[in-house]
């Protein structure tokens, strides 16, 4: 192979991939919804942290937009305050901020107004010239979903979707539609302005280090994949629990619900990552093809099956730790007879050779006892128990379990039986733990740091593709339809408990029970 020409200006001869963090080409991030919560709590802190880690080029720039009139300096001050407040697990360096803030710009305007896009075009030209960003633009839709189509339409009409020699990419936050029909409409519309390869649908769960580690765990080790099928796996439980309620988001939440908010996107993506076939190579489309295939293999439940295999729940009031906790219907902005699900549990089946007959129990809820997200893979018990189980030896037989903890305390545990020290032959379950924080003491990047950098690098492996969005809506929409038609007897679980009794019964029918995380 010929050696790279060090004088070629398209290559930086000073790279050292072994020691330097992966960096990306200079670019302008155009941030719609720059005055919103997501920008202030997640995006700007993530960008600042990337700058701190020297993973952004020094001439990287952000142009923020919202309706609020602000100067560049006002925007910088606002971002300064919020970044300082919301930066997690990281020091704040005033000097670095001054440097970073020089790359922050702002254009006010209404998203439906063509004049905004003229102003943006002028600003982009000015910033690109001043900071030599190579005509690379990454648009980020951090707005209300109802603005997605108008913004994309205006980007097309103003010609901002076409670069002279740089790239044009667009990042879209979930929800990608509120049902299959609206998802199709959105996807079809986006395609008229941006090719699918330049569309980055962000699902921040996929950016979490432990979800990425599922790939490494499954496909980097030889010992697990042979067990990863119906012969050895009894069932899988995926839990995403939150201890908090809906807080100030009650009005919004009652129109969405837990199934739409969590399962349709995050948890089905997690499930697809756990259950997908190995891809031939670790490249964006190869990996996404396999995830999409898995999503398409999930059985679409009939109305009768939905009644047997799904549970909707809503939390009621309770006292937790001596304090009174409101029920969902008492939260601000929530109707007293609201039918929204704050808890959802579904038994999914994957109709393929690998997983035929293996239930995947997926649950999510608010006001559960603690905040935890984990995947628990329960293996079949030993085919024959040689140890006698009785009151003195209650664990004579206990299935092995593999736990992939996504948050908090990211890590992996394997539960197995061991002989209890002492006389007799009493067994006890013990756990072998791998903990990210202790095996790799380095700070774990946040999901947004990972995903923003990936989008700038043009790596869509951890982003959701159009066909995946549609496949997951096809799975969830029939459930939503049945739930919509049902008059639920809510509230059906007390705040601070692990959800409705019917969710336990759903598993009991298969001879299983929820693991207490």
């Amino acid at each position, binding site marked *: 192979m010929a050696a790279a020409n060090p004088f070629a200006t398209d290559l930086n001869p000073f790279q*050292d991939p072994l020691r330097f963090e992966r960096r990306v080409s200079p670019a302008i991030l155009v941030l719609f919804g720059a005055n919103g919560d997501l920008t202030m709590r997640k995006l700007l802190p993530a960008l600042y942290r990337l700058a701190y880690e020297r993973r952004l080029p020094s001439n990287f720039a952000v142009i923020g937009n919202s309706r609020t009139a602000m100067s560049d300096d006002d925007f910088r001050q606002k971002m300064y305050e919020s970044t300082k407040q919301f930066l997690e697990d990281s020091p704040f360096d005033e000097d670095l901020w001054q440097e970073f803030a020089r790359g922050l710009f702002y254009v006010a305007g209404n998203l439906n107004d063509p004049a905004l896009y003229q102003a943006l075009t002028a600003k982009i030209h000015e910033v690109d010239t001043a900071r030599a960003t190579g005509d690379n633009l990454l648009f980020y839709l951090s707005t209300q979903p109802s603005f997605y189509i108008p913004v994309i339409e205006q980007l097309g009409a103003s010609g901002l979707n076409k670069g002279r020699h740089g790239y044009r990419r667009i990042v879209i936050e979930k929800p990608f539609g509120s049902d299959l029909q609206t998802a199709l409409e959105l996807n079809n519309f986006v395609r008229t302005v941006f090719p699918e390869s330049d569309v980055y649908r962000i699902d921040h769960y996929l950016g979490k280090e432990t979800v990425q580690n599922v790939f490494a765990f499954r496909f980097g080790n030889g010992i697990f994949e042979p067990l990863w099928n119906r012969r050895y796996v009894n069932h899988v439980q995926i839990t995403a629990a939150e201890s908090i309620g809906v807080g100030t988001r009650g009005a919004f939440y009652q129109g969405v619900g837990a199934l739409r908010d969590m399962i349709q996107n995050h948890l089905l993506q997690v499930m697809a990552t756990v259950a997908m076939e190995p891809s031939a190579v670790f490249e964006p489309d190869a990996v996404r093809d396999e995830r999409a295939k898995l999503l398409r293999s999930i059985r679409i439940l009939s109305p009768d099956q939905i009644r047997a295999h799904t549970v909707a729940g809503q939390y009621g009031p309770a006292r937790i730790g001596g304090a009174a906790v409101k029920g969902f219907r008492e939260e601000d902005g929530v109707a007293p007879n609201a039918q929204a699900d704050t808890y959802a549990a579904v038994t999914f089946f994957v109709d393929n050779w690998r997983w035929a007959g293996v239930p995947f129990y997926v649950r999510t809820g608010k006001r559960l006892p603690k905040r935890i997200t984990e995947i628990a893979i329960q293996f079949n018990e030993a085919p024959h128990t040689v140890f006698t189980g009785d009151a003195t030896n209650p664990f004579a037989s206990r299935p092995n379990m593999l736990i992939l903890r996504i948050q908090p305390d990211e890590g992996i545990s394997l539960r197995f039986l061991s002989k209890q020290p002492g006389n007799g032959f009493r067994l006890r379950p013990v756990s072998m733990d791998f903990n990210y924080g202790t095996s790799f003491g380095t700070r774990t990047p946040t999901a947004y740091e990972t995903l923003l950098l990936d989008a700038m690098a043009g790596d869509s492996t951890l982003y959701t593709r159009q066909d995946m969005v549609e496949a997951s809506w096809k799975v969830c929409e029939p459930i939503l339809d049945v739930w919509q038609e049902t008059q639920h007897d809510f509230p059906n679980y007390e705040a601070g408990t692990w959800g409705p009794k019917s969710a336990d019964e759903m598993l009991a029918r298969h001879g299983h029970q929820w693991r207490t995380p």
Partner: protein
Amino acid sequence: MTATISAEKLLRDLSQVWTDLAKDSVEKSSTGVLRACAMNLLVCVEGDHDVAATLAEAAHEYPCRLLVLRVRREPGAQLSGRALAQCWMPFGRRQQICSEQIEISAPPEALPDVLSVVRALWAADLPVVVWFRNDSLLVEPALQLLLPMADKVIVDSRRALQPLAVLAQVKALVAAGRPVGDLGWTRITRWRSTIAQIFDNHVCRKNLLGLHSVTIEHTSLEPPLTVPYLAHWLESSLNRELRRTYRSTQNPERWEIQRVTLTGLEFETSIRRKDETAVEARWDGHTAAFVYPRQTEADLLVEEFGILAPDPVFQSVIARL
């Protein structure tokens, strides 16, 4: 009576350390301790050199089975060994994390006897890193026998009494195909990364065609090895020679490097150490500050622990020196 040490006894002691820690912790908080081990680290150190703080800091990022081999040259020094654990409580957690340590003291003449003990003390199946904290130990014949066992050897030319001798050893190790790290090289990673970052910009990159000189200002009387490392890295990256000038500023601040200036036909880039936490770069009318806190020895070690394969960039620089 001649003192002896036994690997079995040290491992038994280590086991007892864990039992005591677990018991103590369970009595106090019922959460137990987490025994963490990601690699083996053998530290060869002269006499009473204090490495405890450095190793404790590095162990936070790479919990390991730590073997400290102290070579004692004072008369009457005896062979001895002990097992202990370094524990810390991560912020916001209730469970202590502990990294295990075995310390062996030996007079030079006992070193050949220690090697088999050291071999028996490795945690199985985990990488072995050997750090020669003092360059005098790098030439100890007995300790040289450790090199083939190591997945990586770490030295520090900057702290060495005889840096050129260390460089010669590094060259020999590289030639033998052994992964080797020199903390003198690690010290300039951020300088290199800052230079790389400036030339991420394609407009700046065009100026590389005319780049002809590099001037490096340092604060020592004589340039430490880090200075030629940086200059030769520039040459190696560009695959051509530059006019190299090293200048001592004899600044009371003991930075490794004070300023780097790259000069071309119509171009000058300079990066200077601004203060304890940052460097400032100037190019093409632009000024930018880059975070660059003063690095501890533990920071440098941690960077090297992350690279257990041969480092081709370092190797190409070594080949030019």
